[in-house]
Structures are given as structure tokens and as C-alpha cells.
């Protein structure tokens, strides 16, 4: 609860900036519309108005300011328009309808979760290999780092086209891209976590003549848990971004990415903004779930930070 106030303060500040920005952003469109509706607009021709900045035009036509908030296809929708669109597409539509954001959200979320599962499994296995095998340490890590320098926007269509060649479509290619983005933070965090026991801890196990598998299960793995959760939180949001990006360049007909693209292509920014916010809320919810799991797990392990 203590953290709620600072968060709400920032949210309020963003809303204020947003609401203020709507006026100059939409003024040109509003002026054009007002003129068609027979209202007085200064200056009088669209060509002349192009010479004005959004701010300058707003000062010249202060009376039109309320209209900037109610355009059907605004350049920048106002918060209440986005909220209205989200309410309509989330709460009022049947969840199986193509108009429903819940339907599109589930399409993206299912690919995200499958991809995250693949990515974390792969990440953990690689990390265990890297920590226990010097050859893997030398060979895998540089490639893991290199893999993240390739722009995913360039890679995503290639993966989808190539998997399509083998008849694999739909969820799986998207999940692969999610996995591609989410395995990396898991590898990095897990390697760091598995190596977190200090020399003294390792010496203690040597005095017991413990095997390296005993060292792994009794020391390295439990010591890596806090690091693993930090990686999970980065990995799950990366996985969601991956699934959305996978929907963008491929003409997908469902999912958050598809909605964003549709809104953009058909000049309907409300659709794009609603999908954007729904995706952000989904990401926040996923991270919150992992934060709660982290707290629960660390408390049960006796390591809860007070």
C-alpha cells in the first residue's frame, strides 16, 4: 500500500501531460472537421493552417479546444476515449468475438506463455551446462549474447516463413520468437545465481567430500532462486514483446500485434491504443504474478527480505 501513492502520482502526472497534449496534436484535424460542419475557423484554408503549429492553431481557435477530445479518428486519442474503447472491446463484447480484446489477448498470451516455458527451460539448461562445463562456458555464452544483438524485427518474419515452410503455423512460430527473447535473461541470471556461492561455501562442501551433483542440488540451485525470479520477471515481459512482434510483420489476424497493425492500417488509432494499453496491462499483471510468487517462495525458503 505504501508504494501506491508514488505510483499514482506518476500516473496522474502522465495523464495531465497526455490530456494537455491532445489539444495541439488534434487541432488540425479538429479545425478541418469544424470547417466542414460550418463553424468559424482561423485561418480559413487548410493550406494556410498547415503553416501553423498545433499549439499556434490552438491559440487561434480556443473555442474549438473541447472538440479536440471527441474526434472519431484522432491523431492522439484522449484518455477517456481509450478507456471507452477498452471498456467496449473488453467488457461488452463476447470473448469469442473477433471484436473482443480478450480474445486477441488470449491469442497473444497463449503464445507468450508457451514461449516463456520453452525459453526458461532452455535458459536454465544452458546455465547449468555453462556452470558445469568449461567448454560450454567458453562457447555458448558469446553466442547467447550475439543472439540478442540481432534485431528481432528482422528475424521474426524469417522464423515464421521458415517454420511455415514445414507446415508449422499459428501459435508455435510466435512462441519460438518469445522463447528467443526470454531465454537470455534466464541464462544470464541463472549463471550468476549458480555461481553466487562464495569460495568458502564451496570449500565447506569439499570438506564433506560432497559430489558435484550434491553441490548443485544442495547449494548452487537454492542459492540461484532469488536470481532466477529476477530473470523470470524480465523474461516474461520480453516473451510478451516477442509474441506481439511476431504478429506484426506476418499479417496475423489475431492477437495484440494484429490489432495494433489493423488500427494503424485502417486509420483507427483508438484500436491501436486500446491494444497497446491492454498489452501493457497484461505485461504488468504477468510481472505482478511473478513478484507474488517470488515473495511466497522466498518466504517459504526463509529468505524473505523484510
Amino acid at each position, binding site marked *: 500500500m505504501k508504494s501506491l501513492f508514488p505510483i499514482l502520482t506518476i500516473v496522474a502526472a502522465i495523464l495531465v501531460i497526455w490530456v494537455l497534449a491532445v489539444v495541439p496534436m488534434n487541432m488540425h484535424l479538429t479545425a478541418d472537421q469544424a470547417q466542414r460542419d460550418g463553424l468559424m475557423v482561423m485561418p480559413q484554408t487548410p493550406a494556410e493552417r498547415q503553416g501553423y503549429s498545433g499549439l499556434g492553431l490552438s491559440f487561434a481557435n480556443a473555442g474549438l479546444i473541447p472538440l479536440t477530445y471527441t474526434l472519431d479518428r484522432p491523431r492522439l486519442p484522449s484518455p477517456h476515449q481509450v478507456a471507452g474503447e477498452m471498456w467496449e472491446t473488453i467488457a461488452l463484447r463476447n470473448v469469442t468475438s473477433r471484436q473482443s480484446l480478450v480474445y486477441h489477448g488470449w491469442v497473444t498470451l497463449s503464445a507468450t506463455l508457451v514461449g516463456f516455458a520453452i525459453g526458461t527451460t532452455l535458459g536454465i539448461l544452458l546455465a547449468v551446462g555453462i556452470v558445469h562445463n568449461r567448454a560450454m562456458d567458453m562457447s555458448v555464452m558469446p553466442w547467447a549474447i550475439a543472439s540478442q544483438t540481432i534485431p528481432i524485427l528482422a528475424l521474426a518474419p524469417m522464423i515464421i516463413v521458415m517454420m511455415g515452410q514445414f507446415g508449422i503455423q499459428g501459435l508455435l512460430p510466435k512462441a519460438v520468437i518469445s522463447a528467443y527473447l526470454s531465454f537470455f535473461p534466464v541464462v544470464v541470471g541463472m549463471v550468476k545465481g549458480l555461481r553466487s556461492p562464495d569460495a*568458502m*561455501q564451496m*570449500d*565447506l*562442501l*569439499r*570438506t*564433506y*567430500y*560432497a559430489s558435484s551433483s*550434491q553441490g548443485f542440488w*544442495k*547449494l548452487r540451485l*537454492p*542459492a540461484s*532462486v532469488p536470481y532466477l525470479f529476477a530473470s523470470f520477471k524480465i523474461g516474461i515481459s520480453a516473451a510478451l514483446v516477442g509474441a506481439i512482434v511476431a504478429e506484426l510483420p506476418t499479417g496475423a489476424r489475431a492477437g495484440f500485434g494484429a490489432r495494433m497493425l489493423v488500427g494503424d492500417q485502417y486509420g483507427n488509432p483508438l484500436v491501436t491504443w486500446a491494444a497497446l494499453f491492454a498489452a501493457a496491462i497484461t505485461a504488468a499483471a504477468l510481472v505482478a504474478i511473478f513478484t507474488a510468487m517470488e515473495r511466497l517462495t522466498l518466504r517459504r*525458503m*526463509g*529468505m524473505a527480505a523484510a
Partner: protein
Amino acid sequence: MTADTVISAQGLNLTFQTNDGPVHALKDVNLDIRKGEFISFIGPSGCGKTTFLRCIAGLETPTDGTLSVNGMTPDQARRARAYGYVFQAAGLYPWRTIGGNVKLPLEIMGFSKSEQAERVARVLALVDLAGFEKKFPWQLSGGMQQRASIARALAFDADILLMDEPFGALDEIVRDHLNEQLLALWARTEKTIGFVTHSIPEAVYLSTKIVVMSPRPGRITDVIDSPLPKERPLDIRDSKEFIDIAHRVREGLRAGHVDD
């Protein structure tokens, strides 16, 4: 070397190769430790006292010379789990309870569940921590944590206890108390204890034999057999014998420093 010698070092040398050239950590170390002795290693940093203890434990390998523990090589002795080792930091696992931490070596060594429970209860009572079995390390003071780590080293009944500055990070009052308890524990268990410290009063108070060491190269400069009785109340530290031994240790340490 006599029949009751447990640890014997003959002509022991250890040279570390570092980026700044070789470091002679141990030079010509000869020492016999008999069963049931409480032997302290004292000296300034870099004198090789910890290195020698680690050699006994098989955590370092001497470059030269022979070292036997219970008639075996240190590595064989380590495999035979001949000793318990207590480090400067308690190093308890934060995700295990005190009981769980003491149980760690027992799990690794494959003791049965019922024997684990029985031993945990026994050694925790030995270090006055009965009733703390279900607490987590952060719920205990530093001194109690170090006692738990001693219990962990005692749990599998090794005859030898190696302690590397176990009370170095604790304050004086806690340290006095733990020293007293350690002597009582030693009397009850009849273990052979190797104890590294850089506190003169601690070394004199605890030991039957004090090994004074000096650095560059790390070597033994004096071995003092303590005439103090086995029963040692804390106020023995004001007796003349105690002060005489402390004086001799100090002289030994100073002599080692002359060639600095």
C-alpha cells in the same frame, strides 16, 4: 612421531605461483600433533597459519614434504571425513533452518533420517542451541550462528576439529563466552582441535600447545607447550603462568617480525 600422533608434518613446503612471482607460503614446517591436543596457530597475516590448516584439510596441496592425518594422506583423510572444519564466517545456508544446516553434512554423507534427527538434537544441545532447531539463521545473533556452524562440524563425529579464526568477527564479550564453551566442549568430546587465531589471549587461554608462526616465508618460529591445567576458568588469564606464556608468544611474534 609417537603412537598417538594424529597429524604429522615433515619438511612441508608450499609455494603459490602468483602474477607477482612465487610466494613461499610455507617453508620447512615440521610438526606433530597428538591425539586430544588443543593446538593454536598464531601469527600475523601471511604467516601461513590458515594455509597450514587448509593443507591438513586437503584443501591445499603442499609442493613438497610429507603430511599425514590419521596415518593417511590429507586427501584420503578428507574422503574418510576425518575432520570437521569451521570457517571464519558461519556460512549457514539462509534457506535452511539451524537444524537443516546442521543436517547438511549428514545428508551428504548418507546418514539415515532417524540418525540425522538424533545427531542434530545431540550436537545442538552440545553448543547450547537446543530449541533453536527450527529458527532461520537471520533470527540468530552472530555468536549463535557461529555456534551452529560448530555444531555442523561436530555432527558427523570426526575426531579432528579444524577451526580457522572462528571467533575473529565477533566482539570481545561474545568471544570470551564462546572460548569458555569451546573448552568445555573439548573436555567433553576429547577431540583434537587445530585452531587458527591472531589473538594472543585467545591462543593462550585455549591451547595445550601454541605454534607461533611468522611470514615471508611462512614458517614456525616457536612451539610452546602450555603448563596451564586442563580446567581453565576465565580468571586464569590473570595468573602469572598465563601472563608468562602470553609474553613468550609476544616475543616470538616480535622476533618473526625483525626481518621485515
